[in-house]
């Protein structure tokens, strides 16, 4: 089906089902309960799951398949956001032109940067991409101010021409971003008993695009092109002596992943029509690297898991403050409570970055395969137990190669 084998197709169906049901699945706790703060079914958070999922899926096509570690992908995210906001200013608040332009612009930008950076590999490549991204960031802050609006960031205003759409909405504000009239911000709330589920147009729009992006990357992973990319990662010498030119392959991967980043940037702007240079900073590039390795480099599902994990905990950890901590640990004896809170304080609120940095290190040190590998290890543990139980089935399976994992 859809050019996928049965297993992949089932996998895709599961992903679609999960994505569609996200507003329900992420709202497991009743409103007003103590646990409600762990709910994640809010439109803007769910949108970020989908958008950063796309970003990470794209990054994984480059890093996961070819092993080329780019530290400059935030530049494409930023370029995508700027392009989309410009379309909102010039054409209309419909998100489609913005997204199309963003993909084109980031693709061209990636072609330029990739063409130069890919002349080197290894750590030189990482440093070159980092240098390019920092350069773009600096330029966005200084000379390119007419395009980027510098430190303030690019915003839509009432004076923008918007030649194809409304300049000013009926209520006198800037019109909202929409998809042929369907406002991205509009939501349908469904109360079920003590629960309340929010179905947001913006989220579903991002979700559909994310599914498309996922499907596309699934096809790439299974294609001869994907095979070549994996071959580049494992042995470039052999590839060259087998008659294949690795550079156009890596460049194509770089451009594709740049376009994914641009798409993610455009979606960010579509949900909230502004763009700032900080989206291009190395910290943003670092974040997508973290998402990808946390989930599992080179696996299909890993980057999506990683993106969701990071964005969810960013949200939760940022919300926790001293009062919340006191509530949680009030059952401890006073002295101990203070110590625990003193330690915990480092990691919550604005300390989230510390937590993510630590997470980064822990994953690289202990779980280079990320969450997916962790899951597989746990699954294997259970399987082994089972195998031990029915003892006559002592496994004589030949060692299978780890195919691109699910």
């Amino acid at each position, binding site marked *: 089906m859809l050019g996928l084998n049965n297993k992949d197709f089932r996998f895709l169906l599961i992903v679609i089902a999960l994505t569609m049901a996200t507003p329900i699945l992420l709202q497991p706790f009743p409103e007003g309960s103590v646990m409600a703060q762990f709910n994640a079914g809010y439109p803007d958070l769910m949108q970020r799951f989908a958008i950063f999922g796309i970003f990470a899926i794209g990054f994984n096509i480059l890093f996961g398949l070819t*092993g080329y*570690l780019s530290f400059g992908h935030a530049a494409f995210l930023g370029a995508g956001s700027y392009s989309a906001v410009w379309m909102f200013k010039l054409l209309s608040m419909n998100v489609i032109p913005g997204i199309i332009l963003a993909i084109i612009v980031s693709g061209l930008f990636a072609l330029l940067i990739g063409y*130069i950076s890919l*002349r*080197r*590999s*290894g*750590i*030189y490549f*990482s*440093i*070159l991409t*980092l*240098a*390019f991204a*920092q*350069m773009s960031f*600096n*330029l966005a*802050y*200084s*000379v*390119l101010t007419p395009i980027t609006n510098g430190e303030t960031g690019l915003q839509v205003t009432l004076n923008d021409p918007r030649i194809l759409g409304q300049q000013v909405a009926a209520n006198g504000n800037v019109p909202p971003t929409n998809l042929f009239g369907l406002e991205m911000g509009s939501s349908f709330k469904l109360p079920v008993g003590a629960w309340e589920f929010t179905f947001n147009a913006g989220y579903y729009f991002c979700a559909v695009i994310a599914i498309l992006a996922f499907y596309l990357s699934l096809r790439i992973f299974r294609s001869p092109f994907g095979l070549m990319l994996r071959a580049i990662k494992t042995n470039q010498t052999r590839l060259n002596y087998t008659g294949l030119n690795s550079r156009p392959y890596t460049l194509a991967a770089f451009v594709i992943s740049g376009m994914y980043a641009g798409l993610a940037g455009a979606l960010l702007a579509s949900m909230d029509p502004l763009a700032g240079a900080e989206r291009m900073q*190395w910290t943003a590039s*670092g974040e997508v*690297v*973290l998402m990808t*390795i946390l989930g599992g480099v080179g696996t299909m599902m890993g980057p999506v898991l990683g993106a969701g994990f990071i964005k969810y905990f960013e949200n939760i950890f940022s919300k926790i403050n001293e009062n919340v901590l006191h509530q949680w640990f009030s059952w401890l004896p006073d002295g101990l409570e203070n110590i625990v809170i003193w330690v915990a304080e*480092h990691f919550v609120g*604005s*300390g989230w*970055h*510390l937590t*993510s*940095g*630590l*997470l*980064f*290190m822990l994953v*690289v*040190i202990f779980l*280079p395969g990320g969450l997916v590998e962790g899951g597989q290890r746990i699954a294997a543990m259970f399987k082994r137990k089972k195998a031990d139980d029915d003892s006559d089935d002592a496994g004589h399976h030949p060692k299978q190669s780890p195919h691109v994992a699910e």
Partner: protein
Amino acid sequence: MDAILLQILNGLDKGSAYALIALGLTLIFGTLGVVNFAHGALFMIGAFCAVTLQRLLSLSFETVDPTKTDFLGNPAKIKTPYIESWLGPETGAAIIDWSVPLAILFSIPIMLFVGYVMERGLIKHFYKRPHADQILVTFGLAIVLQELVKHYYGANPIPTGAPDAFKGSFDFGVVLGFDPNLIIYPYWRMVYFAFAAVIIGAVFAFLQFTTFGMVVRAGMADRETVGLLGINIDKRFTIMFGIAAAVAGLAGVMYAPINSPNYHMGMDFLVLSFVVVVVGGMGSLPGAVLAGFMLGILESFASMNWIKDILPGIDQIIIYLVAIIILLARPRGLMGRKGVMED
């Protein structure tokens, strides 16, 4: 002519910082084969050593002076640093005034310790891992260190003054026969440059004239052979890492008066220092120093007004631009040797 001289001088202090960080990066890379993205964080920790010492020395107790009142009419409170009450007001004040140079002594054991812990606790386990893993784990460490500093010292830059004796500027122009006030250069920057020159000289002398340095240089040229000689490389690696950390830390300590320390200064300098290393030639110590000064001066030239008028924004990107051109035209960098990081 005077303008050119001024820009060269202006570039020296930043160039010194680049050179010192790049030197440490190269030492670590050349001997341990590790790409250390946390090296900028060491520079930052050095700067915050200066901040910390200044704060420690300025710790004060309050006394009430009944003869004076503050603007609300209450008796005025006077803060007296402990150190002034212990050693007398004059000596105490002088020590506080000289806290940045004193921080050199304060920071060396701290930096050596930080370097030791980092190498033994983390880096050691990554000698055999791919460079991408090394980059990632040290990148994570850099974030952790910078966020910890942010947690305790806040997000704002902390002004940390040089001793009064070095405030003000020296008029170079007069010495060289130009009109006064054409080429003025802050005293502290001269100190910084001299300090950097001494450190660089010391590192080179250490490598050149000691047995330890000889082994290290041999190791940089060919790691495997030295390993085969049965020389205990591991211990030397740890020491080398400690030295590199100390060099970065000292660069940071002395830089505090030039640029008020903030938590993200490490990353700002790291990216540029890596560019410096690459331009100088991965694994080449003289290359790192040369490229550091060269790029510092180039950056300073690019920020001249008439150049900015012709090429707007060039001051922001000149270093990256040069790096990109050099990497493409001369992949090994200015002084890189064959066989070092050839992929």
